[in-house]
């Protein structure tokens, strides 16, 4: 049974805006290095700066690689029973981040390194109360057309 209510898998990592999905992170005011999740400091060893500003990323990205998981993951990962294989992607964002995320596609065979993808927020499983647990995901960019 589902309530249709959307619950973020964890707070503070992403948001759904009128302009689409955004990942919430930080940017170094000095060297421009970007971070997801937010970072209170810059980890670039060549940067002396420490002033960080909030930044959000997305929705455009480029698929670096992908992999479908044929075995149910161990805890603390959760999934709907019975387990259905899902695909993970590793995506380069133009803001300078390489981000992991679920892939949302009906055509896994059509995935290709180097293809354009876009960020969305969508359901990854249901919780015990029947709410839709949502997280950030990527889908092939042409799917929007």
């Amino acid at each position, binding site marked *: 049974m589902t309530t249709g209510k959307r619950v973020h898998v964890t707070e503070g990592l992403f948001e759904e805006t009128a302009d689409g999905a955004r990942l919430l992170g930080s940017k170094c005011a000095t060297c421009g290095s970007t971070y997801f*999740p937010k970072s209170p400091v810059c980890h670039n060893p060549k940067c002396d700066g420490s002033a960080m500003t909030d930044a959000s990323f997305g929705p455009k990205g480029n698929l670096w690689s992908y992999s479908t*998981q*044929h*075995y149910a993951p*161990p805890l603390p*990962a959760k999934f709907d029973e019975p387990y259905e294989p899902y695909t993970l992607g590793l995506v380069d964002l133009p803001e300078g981040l*390489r981000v*992991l995320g679920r892939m949302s596609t009906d055509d896994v065979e059509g995935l*290709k390194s180097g293809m354009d993808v876009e960020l969305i927020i969508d359901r990854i499983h249901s919780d015990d109360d029947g709410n839709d647990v949502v997280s950030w995901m990527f889908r092939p960019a042409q799917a929007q057309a």
Partner: protein
Amino acid sequence: MRDVAVLGVGMHPWGKFPDSSITEMCRYAVEAALKDAGVKWPEMEAVSAGSSRFSGGKGWGLNGNDVVEDMGPTGIPVYNLSAGCAAGGNAFDIGHMLVSSGMYEMVLVVGGEKMPKGMIQLSGVDEETDPEYLRQVAVGMPGPAFWALLTRRRMEEHGTTEEQLAKIAVKAHQNSVHNSNARFRQEFTQEDVLNSALVSDPLRLYEICPVSDGAAAAILCSAEEARKHTTDPIWVAASAVATAQFDDGIPRGLASPAPAHGRAYHSEALLAVEGCYEKAGVTPKDIDLVELQDNTVYYELAFPEEWGLCEPGEAESLLESGETLPTGKLPINPSGGFLCFGEATTAMGMFQVCELTWQLRGQAGKRQVPDAMVGLGQTLGLGSNASAVILKR
């Protein structure tokens, strides 16, 4: 810094040993190393040990102290080194330093581990500030997916085939048949590997190392001490450890910098290996055999290229032409590697020291690399730790 010899090595067989404690397994390896060296326990002046995550060590990683208490307390200093799967290599590096610095004449280095069943839970921290926890909860990423992403990228860049991935596992098992310490000692056909279950596409069950119990140890000593016991010691040409650099492109948390070079390579492993080349004064051409950490078949293709042992994109053709067999020009994992031994995380660096020593002595039987003079070992661990060692005769 003075020369350091590997005077003796010892290994407990690797596999699942529900009836043996980690202490018993370490004792087996230590006693074998002492016997191999022709020395007695009270001659050890210090112990450097890998800290286990999963077993013994009083829950504090005090695995070296367990060994000392079991062998008989003599008051010697103990160094417990924690570096994930690189802990054994890290312990070796400190053990080497204790002797090369002139501080001690003879030390014991040991690593032992008993692993829980199933996929390794990388992080021991269940909280939302831990990136490993977050990537399991928010992305649902199991451990093998990390390797699968690297492998898929290589397939699309270099045209690596599923058959080639399988061939690496076939080669590993060919070697393991001749290694009595190996957990899996049967030959696999390419069909066997390709029929094994898909885990994280494109990687199959037989292309990923399982978890095992295991222990390995070595006695290191000064040249002066070594000459009292042997005319033909194995020498530590170099040892190095390293951690990763900021922008190597490896996805270690939820996100990492997307580097301008577009690639992903293990900078920690490269730095450790290059550190060894430099300290030993050798070039990749001088390396006669490699024992590298094959958590999955991917690394047998990527690492030799990243370390200059072959040209970029050449690894598949070396594999296809049999050059990575013990009799080839770039023998990789003649032991059978961790595909056949399984991953006893904190013992792995010491496993490699044992195999390299046997190979350089010419004691490796039917898996022997002919006329091996110089051997390279490498491990990789959580926290972006890596170790490398070059032994020579």
